[in-house]
């Protein structure tokens, strides 16, 4: 009898326990299932948000690249502008080049009445130097620009409006450009004997890095609209 009661109690207890366990498990299942669904929705939302941000950042990166490309292009323009200022004589310029020293021959060689160099020879020389590849020219330190004219006045040569050099002293041209090209042009037969240049000797000195200073005169463009 006692054993029978005990068995029934065990079975009954087990059934109750199982019922409680099943109920708790169902509750858990329900809660977990709800959480899973909620999380799924949140994850999908986050995924969409991430995708949208990725796309947005891609577009922004493209925009940044474009701005950087434009800056690079402007840098090149700035560099071109600075180089142009050097060539135009607005700024100092340096580079490979030569010095051409023009010295009058001795009286014994050419006599006392040998003509001095004049505008014509200087104009010829400047043209020859440009033809030979000179990118910048100075005469006795005075920068020759595309607006510089030379004019003879007695023993002086005006270079531009406000600077002059003495023709009694040596004339020193500084030229920036390719050394070989410059020398070939200058040494070409007859080029340094035009007019009264035949009364002068010339010497060429190479420079791996030569400085030609900027013009003392500003470029004028008053009549450009």
């Amino acid at each position, binding site marked *: 009898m006692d054993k029978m009661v005990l*068995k029934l109690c065990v*079975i009954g207890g087990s059934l109750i326990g199982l019922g409680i366990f099943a109920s708790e498990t169902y509750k858990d*299942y329900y809660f977990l299932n709800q959480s899973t669904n909620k999380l799924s929705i949140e994850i999908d939302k*986050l995924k969409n948000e991430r995708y949208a941000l990725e796309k947005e950042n891609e577009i*922004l990166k493209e925009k940044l690249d474009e701005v950087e490309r434009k800056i690079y292009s402007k840098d090149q323009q700035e560099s071109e502008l600075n180089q142009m200022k050097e060539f135009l004589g607005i700024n100092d310029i340096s580079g490979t080049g030569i010095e051409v020293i023009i010295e009058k021959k001795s009286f014994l060689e050419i006599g006392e009445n040998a003509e001095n160099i004049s505008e014509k020879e200087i104009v010829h020389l400047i043209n020859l130097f440009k033809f030979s590849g000179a990118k910048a020219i100075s005469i006795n330190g005075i920068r020759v*620009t595309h607006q510089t004219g030379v004019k003879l006045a007695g023993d002086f040569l005006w270079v*531009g409006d406000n600077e002059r050099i003495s023709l009694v002293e040596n004339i020193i041209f500084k030229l920036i450009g390719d050394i070989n090209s410059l020398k070939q042009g200058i040494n070409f037969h007859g080029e340094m004997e035009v007019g009264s240049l035949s009364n002068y000797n010339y010497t060429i000195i190479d420079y791996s890095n030569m400085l030609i200073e900027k013009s003392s005169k500003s470029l004028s*463009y*008053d009549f*450009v609209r």
Partner: protein
Amino acid sequence: MIKKYKYYLLSGIIFLGLYNYEMLLDIYRRYESKFLLNISIDELLKEKATIHNKIYIKSNILDKKTENIENQAINKLFISDQKIVGDGLEIILEDGNINDLEEKTDVLYSQKTIHDIDINMLLNDLRKNGAEFIEINGIRLSYDTYIYCAGPFLLMADKKVPAPFIIEVIGDSNILIKSLMEDSNIIKSFINRGIKVSINHKKDMVFNTFS
């Protein structure tokens, strides 16, 4: 019989336990995924802010550079693709004719022909009297433009230019014309040599960009 139920009961408990465990693991994984997504979104937001900031800074740099370049006259006059317009004068030079009565010698031909040195001397006269820009037959002269004889042509800026030579000059035309006509300048010698010379004031001349 009871023993059998015991096994069923035990199996059920284990099954339910394992089922819950799988669900919990799934939730854990989802939380982990959500956490990682949030981190990823935070990083993307930070990246977005950084790019925005970079664009702002670089756009300002770009604007300043653009303004700086475009405002410089040198850019407009020497580099940009814009043509320039100005007032000044036009000189037309043409080789002189030889009359039937004249003896056709080399010296006479040379006198009546325009040479490179003639043009270079004229350019020098123009420059020393205030020429700002010069164009010959549509070629604008630059800081390194040379002029050399090439048979019947003048060679300038690697181009062969035939006569007549139309030299347009931007500058003060009154001063230029007055000074060109002085005896010390080359124009007088052109006239004496029989070279055809025409000089006129000219407005609104359009100069090409540098070639």
